[in-house]
């Protein structure tokens, strides 16, 4: 869902509050160029998404839903006052520039690595996500690219989506606790 042509930040916020806030584009006031990015919980903690595979269904191609804490999908500022659905991760971006010099921001994710447990590994290509409430970042799967494109947008806007991650469970792996890290990158020239 997109709100377009709103000139004032305050007005945008007022309208957004009445709309589903899980995924949204909000036009914000132009100003000094700046970008901002949040993935998961606000603050200084890196959010963790966990996947618990059951012995009875391991490797049977039935996706395993990830779980995370409430903070990972919590509200974001005045424009996104409603928390994401349970176990979703909020991805929020803002890119601002002056009216005279509009810019284009891009969000990418590095899913080229693996989750590892000792000498065993699960590639991030074994995971996908379901985006709830909007299409700004469409549902999709990690491609294994170090710079997988997720979103391109013009200034000055805020965009936020809620994502539920899934382990695709198509292959059997040795037992263990596998850990890995994604890096999201927001850039603007």
């Amino acid at each position, binding site marked *: 869902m997109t709100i377009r042509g709103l000139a004032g930040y305050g007005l945008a916020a007022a309208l957004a509050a009445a709309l589903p806030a899980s995924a949204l584009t909000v036009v914000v006031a132009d100003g000094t160029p700046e970008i901002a990015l949040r993935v998961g919980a606000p603050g*200084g903690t890196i959010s963790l998404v966990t996947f618990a595979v059951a012995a009875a269904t391991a490797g049977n191609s039935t996706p395993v839903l990830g779980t995370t804490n409430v903070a990972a999908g919590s509200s974001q500022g005045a424009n996104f006052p409603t928390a994401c659905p349970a176990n979703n991760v909020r991805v929020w971006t803002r890119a601002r520039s002056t009216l005279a010099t509009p810019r284009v921001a891009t969000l990418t994710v590095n899913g080229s690595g693996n989750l590892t447990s000792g000498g065993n590994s699960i590639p991030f290509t074994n995971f996908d996500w379901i985006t709830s409430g909007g299409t700004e970042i469409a549902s999709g799967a990690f491609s294994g690219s170090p710079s997988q494109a997720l979103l391109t947008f013009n200034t000055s806007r805020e965009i936020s989506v809620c994502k539920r991650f899934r382990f695709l469970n198509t292959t059997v*792996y040795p037992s263990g606790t596998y850990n890995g890290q994604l890096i999201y990158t927001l850039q603007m020239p």
Partner: protein
Amino acid sequence: MKTAACLLAIAVAAGAGLPVHDARAEQPGTDATAPFLVNARLNFRVTYPRFLRFRVGAASTAVNHLVFNVPAAGVGNSAPVSATSGGDAGASALNIEVVGNNGQVTITPTNSSGGLGIGTGNAADGRIDYNQIQTTSSVPQLPPPVLSNAGGTPVQPTLSSALVTQRTAVWTYSYLNQTIPSAGTYGGTTASRGGRVTYTATMP
């Protein structure tokens, strides 16, 4: 660990010389200096269990019952006889699946005959040896045990990858018909007649 270290190295390279804010700092991270770049991290964890799954025949608690009918005209003529009913992959065949993730799986057969072979329930009728039951597999990597009165020879499915076995196959059974036993119904659902084979899969 090598790949994770690589991820970190990529992030550092991308942000070299730039005022990069990442998720170890306060989120949302911001950057107000061109060219603008902000990183945020997200951790994944998968808890994967140690397990062994094994299926012989129907995917239920039912025990498949293969029935071989030998025609009078062909008794003992060494022409193999297929089962007329009882399989879940055709009348004379069973679906087999073995999935495990902690090392080499071994499948061992035993039977309910006490080492004597398959009987009618009447000792005077004699027995049919288990070496008259032949099993073939549709997949070489999941071979069937060769059955004997004592049970049979254990087999080991080929590992699919390190520590992991994920194999499916169809095992087809036939009665080799190389002897002439007394007339009667041998084996069946009465386990004491010796007609029940139990396959046991084990994994370290």
